[in-house]
């Protein structure tokens, strides 16, 4: 029995009495690919905020590699090996594609080493490799702000991979992408799983189905059920809260 990489124990988050998360439990095994779905307001983003240290839970504990993350500041959590992609793509718009990726792969991320030296050979290779994965190599010197929405999404995913985290938290990676781009993103995430642990939050059911991963359904800050996509979609509780309107997807 391997130890879970990430373990959320009875997490409760209260915003002025409103429970964004209540008594949430979740385990992720190393190398796992997991999808999290849930209707709007189910607490999906809050749940990522708790893991990455942006929000402190009022109760419960977050364990990562056997140590508690509570009270650890965001940049330290990131350095421990948790990377996050935001819901709407957040890249550094005034920096070029290459510079965005250079910041992600930089290690150590200390002022002095950034000031006196450039990237080493390996890191430079990695930047080029990442650009070729997400097909941005001929945009290397473009300001990230001038990229299309889909390209920004991919750049942010590439930055996430460049950080080389053990756990990737990916919030709505295919929002606003074309079908073709969506398929490519699904393949990319699947290829990352195994070496990395990946947690994907998405609304797009077809995309989730393509990931062929276990699915966790959140509802009102609580885990409603877990299982394969088919199991989840057949669950009457899920149909009631969430999938009732998308039954036609079963066909």
């Amino acid at each position: 029995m391997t130890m879970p990489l990430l373990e959320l124990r009875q997490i409760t988050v209260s915003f002025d009495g409103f429970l964004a998360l209540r008594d949430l439990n979740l385990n992720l095994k190393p190398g796992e690919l997991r999808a999290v779905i849930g209707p709007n307001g189910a607490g999906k983003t809050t749940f990522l905020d708790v893991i990455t240290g942006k929000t402190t839970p009022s109760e419960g504990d977050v364990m990562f590699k056997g140590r508690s993350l509570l009270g650890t500041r965001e940049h330290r959590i990131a350095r421990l090996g948790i990377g996050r992609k935001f819901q709407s793509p957040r890249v550094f718009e005034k920096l070029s594609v290459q510079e965005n990726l250079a910041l992600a792969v930089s290690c150590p991320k200390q002022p002095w080493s950034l000031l006196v030296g450039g990237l080493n050979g390996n890191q430079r290779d990695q930047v080029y490799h990442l650009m070729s994965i997400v097909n941005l190599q001929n945009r290397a010197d473009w300001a990230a702000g001038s990229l299309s929405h889909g390209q920004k999404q991919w750049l942010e995913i590439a930055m996430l991979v460049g950080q080389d985290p053990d756990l990737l938290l990916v919030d709505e990676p295919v929002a606003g992408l074309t079908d073709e781009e969506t398929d490519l993103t699904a393949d990319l995430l699947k290829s990352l799983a195994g070496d990395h642990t990946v947690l994907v939050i998405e609304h797009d059911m077809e995309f989730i189905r393509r990931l062929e991963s276990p699915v966790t359904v959140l509802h009102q800050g609580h885990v409603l059920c877990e299982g394969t996509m088919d199991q989840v979609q057949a669950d009457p509780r899920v149909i009631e809260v969430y999938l009732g309107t998308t039954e036609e997807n079963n066909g």
Partner: protein
Amino acid sequence: MFESFTTRTKQRFCWPQLLLWVVVIAVIVAAPVVLPVFRLNLLGRFLSLAIVALGIDLIWGFTGLLSLGQGIFFAVGGYAAAMYLQLNSSEGQPNGIPEFFSLYGVDRLPFFWEPFHNPVFTLIAIWFVPALLAAVLGNMVFRNRIKGVYFSILTQAALLVFFNFFNGQQKLINGTNGLKTDVTQLFGQMIGSPEMQRGFFWLTCLMVFLTWFFVRWVVRGRFGDVLIAIRDDEPRLRFTGFNPTLFKTIVFAIAGGLAGIGGALFTVQSGIVSPQYMAVPFSIEMVIWVAVGGRGTLVGAIFGAVAIMYTKSLVSEAWPQGWLFIQGGLFILVVTALPEGVIGWLKSDGPRNLLSRIGFVRPIGTYPQLEMDGQDEVQT
């Protein structure tokens, strides 16, 4: 083949910039010959303000920290220089301490004056004390994640605190009257003598160049990219594993140190340092130099400081009440028409756009990009 479509201006060769440098160097070389002592002295003072402006550009233009309290560090640097000069010239005075102390019945040198007997200590203190002060003040603010307009208000409040404190300390630093330096001695010469002043002019020019090189080194490369990232999306940077508080503290300290150096050079060329250097309007003016010159362009900061201050002194001589109107007008112009400042406007093809708008030059090359985009679509 992609170069001509690069949307970034950072690496692009830019003729206005080159032209500006030629003009600047020509002015500096010619100035001592052409200008009367009085004007040369003014130019030297304004160049020392350019050093302060470079620091402001670093924290505001690149990192997005709008400090309205740079006067603190400017004045502290000035006081450090003035204290050494006062001590250096107080041998014949009663008790061997600067003359003003006797006005308040002080017969022993306050303890913090002691190390300023040493010229090496003074040269270090001029930049190190303001930098340390900035680091401590900055860190307290940054670690609590106070940003934006709240940061600006806090720096201005700190400025007022220091202003009032310095004003009230007659027995320590001569309060409102400040410390005079023009009749003090250095290397056996009067600070106020034309030869010394010319020396300070050259020293200031050298320091402006060194500062420019230094700040350029800081903002190029990944460190500078981190600063821009802090300005544009600080939380995102945290989740990438960087600690913005550390970076912000460092650049705020650098800007403080530069303000100190500028303050010391300004003091020796003005002949006095007083709490007036910490007046609120002066620190706001510093920000206006950078805004008018161009945020995020180092040449703009230097140009802004020197051009505005020189114009100010010329206008004030001819029309004493006029300057405030012009300064206000400049500020409105920058906010409404030139958000990137003068140098930023020149860099972004502003002149050609203006000419084409009023019909002098026909717009050229509008369509190649479309074709380019088409090809790219096929590739992806």
